[in-house]
């Protein structure tokens, strides 16, 4: 590699890293507790616990909906969801209107057997950490900005891999020159940690970027696929009365055999049309549990209107989520995720240190060169 090429890549690596450093540190630091958000919520008492009733029959979906509306009088239901890892709990989302602002949504957990209110969901300190991590309390612009920082991070990683060659080709793999200056030792650690975690960092970084586009992708799906699915119902008013949720669930299961309902979106919510329920179905394997299939049902009669697989970009979004969160391989994978996150913090921190140390080293050299210049007589 020519010296000029190395210099160019070095400029790319330095500036893409420097511009994104503060935000990447924020993302890594907030991401660390988020890996264990479930455990932290449980520890702090913010995770609702189902009642102990082994083998008891599950309440009907309509009974859960009635309990949710009774718990939040004067408001409307937006979604009801079932978490496959928490079979004893059903979660209900209420808001002042079906298309109300997401920040006005109240999320409550109900016992899947008795429909007893178990408590609010998604509150407490982890909500603050989550908001900082996803949009820095700046809504969609904040999300897109962090997505941009994620893209810079990806460029910094790729340029770092390119620079790995000229910096390490004279050494054996994993050489740490302990006898050299502190700057050289940190350069070796920076190179080593960076290169061994490169695949993980790229996957987590890029899936994070994809997640920041979730709302845009959903809008695209609504404008194209969903619009064509509900085209035969164009001009129909919102339902004057809603079909029984038990009928909705039963018909959705018949339409997607072997699948379970992950969540139901009520007519008028962002996930469906103004006239339809949307039941999002999931499979039972690790992969198919992530790939949801929507079934649209008439809001008044509960009859199935249409069902199609999600487009590739939404499937990519759904698959990118576990790859970003690291919550799909049990506690050991979560611990590994946390260690890799910490190592990324070390890479970012050491990169910043190396840049500062190089500037400090250059400054006296520059001033010495300036001082040694012979004054030009005027």
């Amino acid at each position, binding site marked *: 590699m020519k010296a000029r090429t190395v210099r160019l890549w070095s400029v790319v690596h330095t500036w893409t890293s420097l511009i994104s450093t503060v935000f990447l540190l924020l993302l890594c630091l907030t991401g660390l507790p988020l890996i264990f958000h479930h455990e932290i919520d449980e520890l702090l008492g913010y995770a609702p616990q189902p009642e102990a009733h082994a083998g008891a029959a599950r309440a009907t979906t309509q009974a859960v909906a009635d309990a949710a509306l009774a718990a939040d009088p004067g408001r409307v239901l937006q979604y009801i969801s079932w978490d496959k890892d928490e079979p004893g709990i059903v979660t209900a989302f209420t808001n002042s209107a079906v298309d109300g602002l997401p920040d006005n949504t109240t999320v409550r957990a109900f016992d899947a057997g008795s429909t007893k209110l178990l408590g609010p969901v998604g509150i407490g300190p982890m909500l603050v950490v989550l908001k900082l991590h996803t949009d820095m309390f700046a809504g969609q612009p904040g999300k897109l900005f962090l997505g941009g920082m994620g893209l810079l991070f990806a460029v910094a990683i790729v340029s770092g891999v390119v620079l*790995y060659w000229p910096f390490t*080709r004279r050494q054996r*793999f*994993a050489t740490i020159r*302990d006898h050299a200056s502190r700057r050289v030792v940190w350069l070796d650690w920076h190179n080593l940690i960076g290169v061994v975690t490169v695949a993980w960092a790229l996957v987590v970084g890029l899936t994070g970027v994809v997640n920041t586009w979730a709302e845009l992708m959903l809008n695209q799906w609504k404008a194209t696929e969903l619009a064509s699915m509900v085209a035969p119902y164009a001009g129909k008013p919102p339902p004057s009365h809603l079909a029984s949720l038990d009928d909705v669930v039963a018909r959705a299961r018949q339409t997607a055999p072997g699948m379970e309902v992950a969540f139901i979106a009520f007519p008028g919510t962002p996930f469906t049309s103004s006239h339809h329920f949307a039941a999002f179905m999931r499979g039972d*394997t*690790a*992969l198919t549990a992530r790939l949801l299939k929507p079934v649209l049902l008439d809001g008044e009669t509960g009859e199935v209107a249409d069902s199609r697989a999600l487009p590739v970009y939404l499937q990519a979004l759904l698959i990118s989520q576990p790859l970003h969160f690291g919550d799909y*391989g049990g506690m050991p994978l979560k611990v590994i995720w946390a260690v890799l996150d910490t*190592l990324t913090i070390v890479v970012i921190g050491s990169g910043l240190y190396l840049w500062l140390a190089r500037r400090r080293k250059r400054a006296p050299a520059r001033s010495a060169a300036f001082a040694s210049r012979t004054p030009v007589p005027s």
Partner: protein
Amino acid sequence: MHGSSDRSRLWMRVFAAPVLLAVATITGLLAALLWGTVGQYVAWVSVGAPVLVIVWVWVRCRTQKSGQFSRATRGK
């Protein structure tokens, strides 16, 4: 001819371990998603491999340092 083969040998020496670790990481990330419980075990080992390398290098540095220190004190 020599230059080219030397260069590729050098390239292998520099990038073989990082490429292997990257392949292991990607395999592990997908294994947990595609192969259920068995995939989880694969993921723990292969996604954890970079962490093991760092731990190994750190321990190696520590033992080398303490070895040098004890040799130096014995020399005195």
